[in-house]
């Protein structure tokens, strides 16, 4: 019978099983290492990093205190008052009311035949209430049209027209003005070049039912 040489695999299989006794030591070393790492981390945080942070907070606090004391409170108060004055002044000047614009507007946009009796101007509501007399309903309609065509007017509300004993027509008008009406006069568009359309024969009934888009009637 021919003996075959044993293969390496067979040799290995024939060897008795060796019990690994070293591995628990490796586990022990590993777990000890973990323990030491955790311990060092704790000690490092507790006695190294935390005091460092505490100290840094104290240093920053003292620096902030020192910085805030570098300018006196009275200087700051004075400056805030000055700055408040400037800031508020800017707002007040932007909203500064030029009430005389109303008079200029009426002078520029009134027919010669119109006589105003009273006026009530409110810059907050941006409106004028006018009472006056005109020689005829035609003149009144023309006057309303002049107001209506002005870029400074939003709306003309015709309130009342009544013939008096002198055969004049007394009227009440309310004019709603543009938002920038009471701003400085030089900033406003001029209405002197507005062409006033000639209004042909207009009867009182036409005035009382005036229908243009920006003229409302409340008779």
């Amino acid at each position, binding site marked *: 019978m021919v003996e075959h040489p044993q293969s390496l695999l067979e040799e290995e299989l024939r060897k008795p099983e060796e019990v690994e006794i070293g591995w628990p030591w490796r586990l022990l070393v590993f777990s000890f290492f973990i323990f030491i790492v955790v311990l060092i981390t704790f000690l490092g945080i507790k006695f190294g990093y935390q005091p460092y*942070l505490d100290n840094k907070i104290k240093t*920053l606090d003292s620096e902030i205190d020192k910085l805030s004391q570098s300018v006196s409170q009275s200087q700051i108060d004075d400056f805030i008052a000055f700055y408040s004055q400037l800031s508020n002044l800017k707002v007040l000047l932007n909203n500064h009311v030029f009430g005389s614009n109303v008079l200029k507007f009426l002078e520029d946009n009134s027919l010669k035949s119109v006589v105003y009796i009273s006026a009530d101007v409110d810059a907050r509501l941006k409106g004028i209430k006018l009472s006056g007399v005109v020689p005829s309903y035609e003149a009144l309609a023309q006057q309303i049209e002049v107001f209506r065509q002005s870029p400074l007017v939003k709306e003309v509300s015709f309130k009342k027209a009544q013939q008096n004993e002198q055969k004049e027509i007394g009227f009440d008008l309310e004019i709603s003005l543009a938002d920038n009406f009471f701003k400085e006069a030089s900033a406003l568009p001029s209405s002197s070049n507005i062409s006033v359309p000639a209004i042909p024969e207009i009867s009182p009934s036409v005035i009382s039912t005036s229908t243009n888009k920006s003229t409302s009637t409340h008779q």
Partner: protein
Amino acid sequence: MKGSTKRLSSIFLSAVFIIGALIMYASFIKPIYKTIAKERGEVAAREKILNDSKAIIDQLKSMLSDYQNLSALQDQISLSLPKNPSTATAFYQLTQLASNSGLSVESVGVAQSSIGQSQEKDTLLKGVGSLKFTLRTTGSYEALKLFLAKIENNVRIFDSNSFKIAPAGGEKGTNAFNFDIEVDAYYLGD
């Protein structure tokens, strides 16, 4: 010592170390880590405050040095918007402007309004208070026109927010009118 005993001992010790590490982590490191995270946040916040404060203080010092050199402007601005109501001064100015314009002052009323907040969204800024003067005057149309022009261009800011014109004595066709004029004067609030 037998090999098996050694193995058991080393496994037991390993377990002790691992459990000890876990206990140390859970009982000491985790809580202290929270404190550390909080303190780091505080440090970051303080550093930001410090840097911002430094920038503000530098800017403030620069502005303060400019401000010290602007005493004439300060005076001028205080005339336009005084730091207190200065009711008597405003009253005197209005009556003088009216009489210089040719208006005859019949009565003057004054009401002080509450101080409004500054329109800028900055809580440090002080608001503006206003004094509402109600003047009843008589005079010509030209006098009113002159008076309005004067108060519009006055150093102290006056706003003629409303006025009523009516014929004096109820007669039309004359150049004598009654004027009820409301004028607002302003001052810096506290």
